[in-house]
């Protein structure tokens, strides 16, 4: 199994590569359109802010090719953190920016509050759709590592695959057919995170 990690050229993908190799798949970095078609599955990591992530995809001319691979050729993809957020229509971070538009809805800032400082950093529980292969074998209320201030808000309720709570209930994962996105960092979530990668690679 060859997993292509979309390389925005801005670093911070080492941990994801390490984790995927650890669970037993081969990894290649995808920097161009041709790279995308050569792999079995794709992982879209998040870098910086929503706008940076989209700019990086545009700079490398990956937006159309990625959409074709995912929506037309139905290649499985896992978005992580901002990589999940950009799957939405729109992101409000940094003055607003169009996303990949694979899911209806926007990425907006968490409400936060006096007890709910932002960024939301640390380990938090998720309630997930246990029937989804991505979450196969996870314990109830599994804890994952989060590091973010924004969250995706899909307008189609059935596309929310997991939720978490931080002053409000927010979407911790989205899914539709071959497209998966998680707000938390499986590459930083110890054994349960590795389980999510294993599920994505071998069951999704």
């Amino acid at each position: 199994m060859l997993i292509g990690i979309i390389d925005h050229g801005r670093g911070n993908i080492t941990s994801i590569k390490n984790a995927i190799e650890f669970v037993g798949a081969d990894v290649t970095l995808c920097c161009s359109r041709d790279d995308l078609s050569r792999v079995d599955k794709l992982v879209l990591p998040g870098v910086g802010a929503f706008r940076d992530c989209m700019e990086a995809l545009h700079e490398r001319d990956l937006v159309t090719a990625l959409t074709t691979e995912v929506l037309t050729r139905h290649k499985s993809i896992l978005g992580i953190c901002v990589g999940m957020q950009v799957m939405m229509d729109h992101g409000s971070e940094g003055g607003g920016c169009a996303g990949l538009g694979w899911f209806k809805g926007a990425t907006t800032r968490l409400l936060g509050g006096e007890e709910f400082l932002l960024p939301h950093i640390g380990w938090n529980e998720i309630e997930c759709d246990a029937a989804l292969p991505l979450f196969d074998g996870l314990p109830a209320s599994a804890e994952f590592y989060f590091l973010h201030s924004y969250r995706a808000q899909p307008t189609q309720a059935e596309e929310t695959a997991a939720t978490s709570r931080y002053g409000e209930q927010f979407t911790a994962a989205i899914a539709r057919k071959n497209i998966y996105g998680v707000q938390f960092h499986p590459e930083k979530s110890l054994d349960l995170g590795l389980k999510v990668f294993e599920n994505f690679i071998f069951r999704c």
Partner: protein
Amino acid sequence: MLKKRIIPKLLVDSLQTEPTLVTTRDYAARRVAGSPVSQARVYSAQGADELSFINLGGRAGFSRFLAILEQSARELFMPLAAGGGVSSVDDARALLVAGADKIVINTAATENPCIISEMAERFGSQSVLISVDYRTPLEGEPNVFVDSGRRDSGIKVTDWVNQCERLGAGEIMLNCITRDGSSSGYDLLWIDKVRRVTTLPLIVSCGCGSIAHFIEAFATTGVSAAAAGTFFAFHDQNPIQARAMMKNAGVPMRRLY
């Protein structure tokens, strides 16, 4: 519910050809505490929530420090903060590429605060962890110390924290140098004062000598995390025991599987 975090600190003396793990007292008086990578493995297995790698070798040891970080990140799938001797956005990128998620920065940020916003724009605020080192003065408000605690920057701690927040920092680590390695407990007074002037998550560090000190910090201040170096390196307690006792005391902790 978001859990409180305990963070073992790994101070790396990278000036040696074979970098060693050390602990310090008052940011000096080093004691050798083992090998950084093996110790990081142990902490991960013992249920640490996050690890903080600090390079004590400055520029000269930076590449050896990077190798240690890289080696750790290859097998530890957990949050890793790293810093010490970071003087540019390129240094920060090198740490991220090696596998860190958060960049710990102090001296370079006080000399050129713009680096905070540059890093926040490039890597996201969540990746920018400002390490605020200070000594408790006999009276009045403490100043930020830089250059591994050797130089008083003349900047007031609360002013600096405010400025960091405005510039886009994501988290603050408060290091009370006076208590470093003392095992006398955290500086609860100034944690509380800083808590009142910022909305950023705070990590308290320096002074932990017992599990009761963790509990006290979480029970009486609004900190999100507590870090400890000497405590984990030289006491019999490990993170598993610490988290069990903290959970019993009502501190929300991550479950271990």
